[in-house]
């Protein structure tokens, strides 16, 4: 496996109480276009804000008790009782 996923779509997966994983064909850039080297095919992006290696996850979410669902939040359907 290499970084080149052969033009596959990019998929961002939300993990419960954890980071966002990005798989597929992607590039992480700063606002000026400079690429941030991800060094791996799948990256975990920090979602709790506590990582010391942002934008990448370093597992800090577990230490600070970060809670998040793995579905959409804030615009819940009325029949959606899932609470993170």
């Amino acid at each position, binding site marked *: *496996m290499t*970084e080149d996923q052969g033009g596959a779509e990019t998929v961002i997966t939300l993990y419960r109480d954890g*980071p966002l*994983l990005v798989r597929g064909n992607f590039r992480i850039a700063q606002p000026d276009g400079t690429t941030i080297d991800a060094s791996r095919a*799948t990256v*975990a992006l920090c979602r709790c804000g506590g990582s010391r290696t942002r934008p990448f*996850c370093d*597992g800090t979410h577990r230490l600070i008790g970060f809670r998040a669902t793995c579905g959409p939040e804030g615009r819940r359907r009325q029949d959606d009782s899932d609470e993170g």
Partner: protein
Amino acid sequence: MTPTKANPSNTVTAEPEPVRCGLPGPVGPLSALLVDALAGGPRGLPGEATSLGNPLDDADLHLALYLCFELNYHGFAGVDSDWADEPSLLRVRRLLGEQFLAALTGNLGPLPDGADVPDRLEAIIAADDSPSIATYLLQHATEEQVRELLVHRSAYLLKEADPHVRVLPWLRGRPKAALVEILADEYGGGRAERMHAELYARCLRTLGMDWRENAYLDRLPGVTLATVNLTSLLCARPRWRGALLGHLAVTEMTSSEANRRYAAALRRLHLGQRDVIAYFDEHVLADAVHDVVAAHDMAGAFARAEPQLAESVLRGAQMLLHVEGAFARHVINSWAAGASSLRG
């Protein structure tokens, strides 16, 4: 006790070529049986192999078991590789492995409740009250103690992920793809210089330590070998695949933070050269990915696909924390007493 550098016969060579070390010295009747036999060609071993010590950490049992497994990894100089599937050796491996596993299983606590397997794995981690070597290193360790830890971990990390490859054919679907995703990272995404075992070897080389597999085998106590043997054992039989996935999941779930502390400890001791630190920095980020992949996509998906093995997944997690806890207590207690944690 004595320091951690390679003994004089294990001189560090300049070129990083894969070389095999010779057999270690025996530490009791079981390991003597194997060391003596392996020096010759494959032949039948005597039928009985029972340890008189505590199967959880007996140095003789665990060296003997380690030797049995090692024949299916890189092997030893001067040992015929056909020993790998010699039936009488496999029988000894099975007997010793079952003694170890029976003792370990008898020491596990009750399983925690939870919504699903990832949730229950988190609960198992939260309930673990073992001391943390990573925290000790960050706060107290001397350079000699850091080098000792690198020696202990060399038994596995110089062949990191090799045991797990065996498990792939026993999985299907999402858990299999998740394990492949993790293993691909362990093997550097196809780049030899980024293979995690190679990063570890480079760390040892840069610190002037012996980077050859099994170079330090004569220094490792039973409690260290038990951590490697548990991994090998759970990768040895399809029946134990669930336990192996729980074992790997908790390894990954606890790894980022530990490696961050190892890296910080190395920097505190002014050992932060790029080739020393690369292994640990890499694992902070790689294992943050592996953490959730292993918990949800691998162990969690496996337990949903094969619910009759969900409990086995959790037991594997407990087994890991039990042997790692015993290892951590040994190391920290040795250091607190001003002693080496290695064999003399």
